[in-house]
């Protein structure tokens, strides 16, 4: 049964991908949606069985590698962690599949799209149910591939291709770290099986790794390398640049991959590898700092963006920062909790944004929207729900999860924990601000769109709205329902062995002892943020202009995403291009081709002409050539051999 949940999407993808021409658009949609809905049902059942009734298990499929010491199995691991992920992934994916039926209705290659979506889901499920590092890596690379294919889905757009390549290349940096981390794990533990590795972690934590004459704590190095992989996939500061560009893909893709599921793989990995990270204080501290800084960075950039999807993309980046520092302070449960609630409301926001874009005939710039709340009322309400959840307003899902994260980081009591807390508070304000900035700019005020666009603006069809209702329901109740199990009193009974926390790190257990203001402050600043947005965009619309003109350097800094792209462009991309161009034109073109293939070919042709010119057709030339041959051989022997 759980195996079916994992492999149904694969089957559906094969059918849609290889027989798409045969079964047609409708057939492809039908097959993939049906498969995903069944998988979602199975996923929920699995969550109930494993998560709520504690029936975790490992399903062995077959032997993968058996070479010497290295033995790797294909097996699916179902515990609370993976069951949660399976449920989230299948539900969101199913919703996105259904939504895509409406959203992509006018596209030319629907079977391809549906096939990609399903294959992505399969890889994601492989990733989360992995029982060893290699399988994890398999899923990891698989979702990367699917992400690449989907970002570049509209391959006739140069910008989409560029974004796809960027996503792939930046992820490669992370994956390189991840692969090195896996090598390190194998080197240290002699196994890649999770159980074996986790059991040996306390021992290995004491050893050190000698590299270039220096000794490094072995586990810290390993964890940091693995964390680089997580950073790449989850778009943490430094390796985040690909995520906003990934919005070139169709909106359902953004919702599924670049908001709800794939980008959270890093968080999932931290939770999964908690038995390793727990033994490395340094690694955990790094995780907190990176997460906190990312949250701050992305929220600040999100304030200044005008593309509706980019705002949500930076919001995603920022929320991922929350999850990371939650994991960094050992509140893995809180991270997973936020992951789950975030999946619902961020998918909701993205799909809602998609609905807006759909209504606005493909327009994505918020400066060309406004005043459309009466034209698309359902979408408007759904966006409100999503934003309220994102901002963490009671009783929406985000309130529970975000609050817990902030409390946990305060409860950690460490320097980095406090850093994370205060950053989190600021980010909560910014989040609320840019969320309502989005709502106000899009739905309120006078329209800035052209008459034609407004004339065509219409509410989305039911096939697009119904998934939104489901997600909205999740965004409302997920926090409330999940609180107890994920982070509340029952969390230890829920997670069991899936998550390991050292007693000294039990931040979740200490939440109750915190002062009152710690847990209320986020809500207050969020409300403040909404109010500020109202002031700036409804009550006194001149304020943003005044601010941007008076704090121009800061504004530009934020608008240009802290100049990360420019920095990378100058430091990595352009030198790489220059070296590549040099090697291509001079190294390959002039030297290798010139002396190698082209030069050789030229010489060969010359020799060939010369050789055929020897064949004159005259008998006495031939006879003479033979005589010369004889004389040469005889002379050779007389001169060099004998004597």
């Amino acid at each position, binding site marked *: 049964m759980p195996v079916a949940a994992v492999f149904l999407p694969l089957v559906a993808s094969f059918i849609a991908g290889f027989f798409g021409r045969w079964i047609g658009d409708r057939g492809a949609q039908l097959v993939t949606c049906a498969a995903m809905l069944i998988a979602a049902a199975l996923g929920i059942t699995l969550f109930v069985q494993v998560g709520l009734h504690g029936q975790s298990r490992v399903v062995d499929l077959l032997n993968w590698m058996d070479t010497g010491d290295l033995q790797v199995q294909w097996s699916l691991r179902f515990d609370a962690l993976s069951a949660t992920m399976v449920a989230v992934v299948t539900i969101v994916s199913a919703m996105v599949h259904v939504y895509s039926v409406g959203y992509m209705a006018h596209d030319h290659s629907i079977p391809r799209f549906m096939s990609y979506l399903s294959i992505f889901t399969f890889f994601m499920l492989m990733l989360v149910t992995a029982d060893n590092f290699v399988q994890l890596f398999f899923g990891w690379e698989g979702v990367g591939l699917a992400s690449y294919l989907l970002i570049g889905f509209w391959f006739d757009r140069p910008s989409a291709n560029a974004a796809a390549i960027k996503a792939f290349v930046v992820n490669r940096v992370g994956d390189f770290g991840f692969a090195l981390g896996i090598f390190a794990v194998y080197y240290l533990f002699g196994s890649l099986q999770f159980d074996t590795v986790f059991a040996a972690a306390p021992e290995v934590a004491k050893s050190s790794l000698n590299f270039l004459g220096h000794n490094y704590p072995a586990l810290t190095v390993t964890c940091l390398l693995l964390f680089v992989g997580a950073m790449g996939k989850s778009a943490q500061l430094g390796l985040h640049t690909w995520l906003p560009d990934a919005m070139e893909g169709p909106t359902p893709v953004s919702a599924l991959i670049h908001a709800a599921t794939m980008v959270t793989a890093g968080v999932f990995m931290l939770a999964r590898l908690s038995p390793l990270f727990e033994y490395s204080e340094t690694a955990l501290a790094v995780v907190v700092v990176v997460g906190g800084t990312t949250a701050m960075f992305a929220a600040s950039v999100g304030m200044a963006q005008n593309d509706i999807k980019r705002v949500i993309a930076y919001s995603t980046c920022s929320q991922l920062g929350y999850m990371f520092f939650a994991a960094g302070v050992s509140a893995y449960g809180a991270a997973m909790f936020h992951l789950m609630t975030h999946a619902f409301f961020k998918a909701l926001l993205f799909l809602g944004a998609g609905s807006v874009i759909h209504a606005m005939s493909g327009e994505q710039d918020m400066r060309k929207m406004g005043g459309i709340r009466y034209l698309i009322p359902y979408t408007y309400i759904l966006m409100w729900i999503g934003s309220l959840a994102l901002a963490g307003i009671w009783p929406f899902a985000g309130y529970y999860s975000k609050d817990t994260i902030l409390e946990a980081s305060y409860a950690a009591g460490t320097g980095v924990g406090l850093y994370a807390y205060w950053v989190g508070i600021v980010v909560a304000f910014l989040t609320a601000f840019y969320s309502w900035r989005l709502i106000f700019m899009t739905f309120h005020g006078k329209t800035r769109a052209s008459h034609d666009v407004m004339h065509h603006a219409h509410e989305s069809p039911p096939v697009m709205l119904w998934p939104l209702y489901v997600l909205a329901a999740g965004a409302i109740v997920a926090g409330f329902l999940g609180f107890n199990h994920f982070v509340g009193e029952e969390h230890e009974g829920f997670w069991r062995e899936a998550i390991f926390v050292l007693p000294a790190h039990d931040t979740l257990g200490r939440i109750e002892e915190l002062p009152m203001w710690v847990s209320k402050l986020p809500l207050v600043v969020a409300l403040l943020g909404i109010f500020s947005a109202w002031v700036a965009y409804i009550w006194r619309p001149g304020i943003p202009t005044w601010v941007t003109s008076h704090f121009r350097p800061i504004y530009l800094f934020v608008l240009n995403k802290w100049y990360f792209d420019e920095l990378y462009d100058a430091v990595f991309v352009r030198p790489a291009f220059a070296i590549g161009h040099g090697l291509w034109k001079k190294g390959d073109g002039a030297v290798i081709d010139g002396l190698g293939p082209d030069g050789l070919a030229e010489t060969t*042709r010359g020799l060939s002409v010369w050789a055929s010119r020897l064949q004159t057709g005259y008998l006495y030339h031939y006879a003479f*050539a033979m005589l010369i041959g004889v004389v040469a051989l005889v002379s050779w022997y007389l001169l060099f051999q*004998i004597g």
Partner: protein
Amino acid sequence: MIHFALSDFLPALPEMFLAAAALALLILGVCQGDRSAREIAWLSVLALVVTFALVAAPLHAHGPERQISFYGMFVTDGFGAFSKMLVLAGSALSLIVAMRYNEQEGIARPEYPVLVLLATVGMMAMVSANDLISLYVGLELQSLALYVLAAFQRDTLRSTEAGLKYFVLGALASGMLLYGASMVYGFAGTTAFDTLARDFADGGTASIGLVIGIVLIAVGLAFKVSAVPFHMWTPDVYEGAPTPVTAFFSVAPKIAAMSLFIRVMVGPFGGLLVEWRQVIWFIAVASMLLGAFAALNQTNIKRLMAYSSIGHVGYALIGLAAGSAIGVRGILVYLAIYLFMNIGTFTVILCMRRDGKLVENIDELAGLSRTQPGMALALAIFMFSMAGIPPLAGFFAKLYVFLAAIDAGLYGLAVIGVLASVVGAFYYLRIVKLMYFDEPKGAFDKPIGREMQAVLVLTALVILFFFAWPGLLVDGADAVASALFSG
């Protein structure tokens, strides 16, 4: 007084049978006139098949057993039997594919198969030569028949020119060989291979005259296998001679001459390996390089095949330069595979006929895959095989000789061989490219004839599936090659 017993002649039974069959068929042909050409041709094939059986039967029954007869002039052993079988197969196949062509060109006469049979007798005599005299008479019997065959289409200028060129240059080469043989006789006092072998094996040092004699004999034989620089006749004769004759030239005489080359070099002069290896090394390298480079520029497919065969001889000679059982095994395997590749290719060339007229330009093959897919596929298989691309047979052919070269420490030779085969791959693959990627020039005449189809399918299957059962050939070659060195 000398007594002859029947058993003294028995080792030469296949040769005697074939010669007698040739004479009988000659009489039959003369009595019946040109009408009987096809009948005589099929009877000749039958005679070759029977001879094949006569050669194969003792080998099968007693294994590679060495027998000397005719006062030491004639030797039969496993190596000889193996080579003879290849020669006979080559002759038979080339006779089969020749019939239709000869009829279309108006040269279908009973003398054609008879001459092929007599040439084959000559080749068998060469392979079994155990004395410089029997070597020479066998060689001349074969050569004379070939000269006539080259000029067989006597009404065309090209054919007669080819015959004449071949004759004059062949006479020159024979002269050199005879001169070398006389020097060997003068310096060693004998022409018998066994005596020579015994003398050198006993540590007899070779005087300079003897070495020069061997060099001259090698030159004469190099002419027969068309190794560079004694290859000059090959392109002109291959192009000028009637195509079935070219097909015949490219296989049977080449196999026989190569076997004779091996026989002479590792037999009587086996003790002088260090001396003659350099000659072989030189002509092998020159042949491989010239075969690769000169062919690039050719437009006539028969000329191309001439250079191709020069190149192939170069590769085969690598095995001789190794001078070991592995090397000889390599050559035998090479020759066997080469036989099938070449007959197959020439079968296609023989079918290159448009509106009843022969076409020989390589460009005419353009788009063959669309007009005659089966033939194109077969030719593609042969071309890939000749280029030495695995898993086709041609790859293994090269592999075994290169292995021998490396085993003998001749790394330079192996490296040059590999490089030359890379260059050679270009023109083989160019034909494939023409057939599969260029615009069709129109189909060749159909039908091509049932016997042609059969030969084409047979050769293509052999080349294609050799890799599945290489043992059938390689083990046999291994056994006879080892016997050649141990006995």
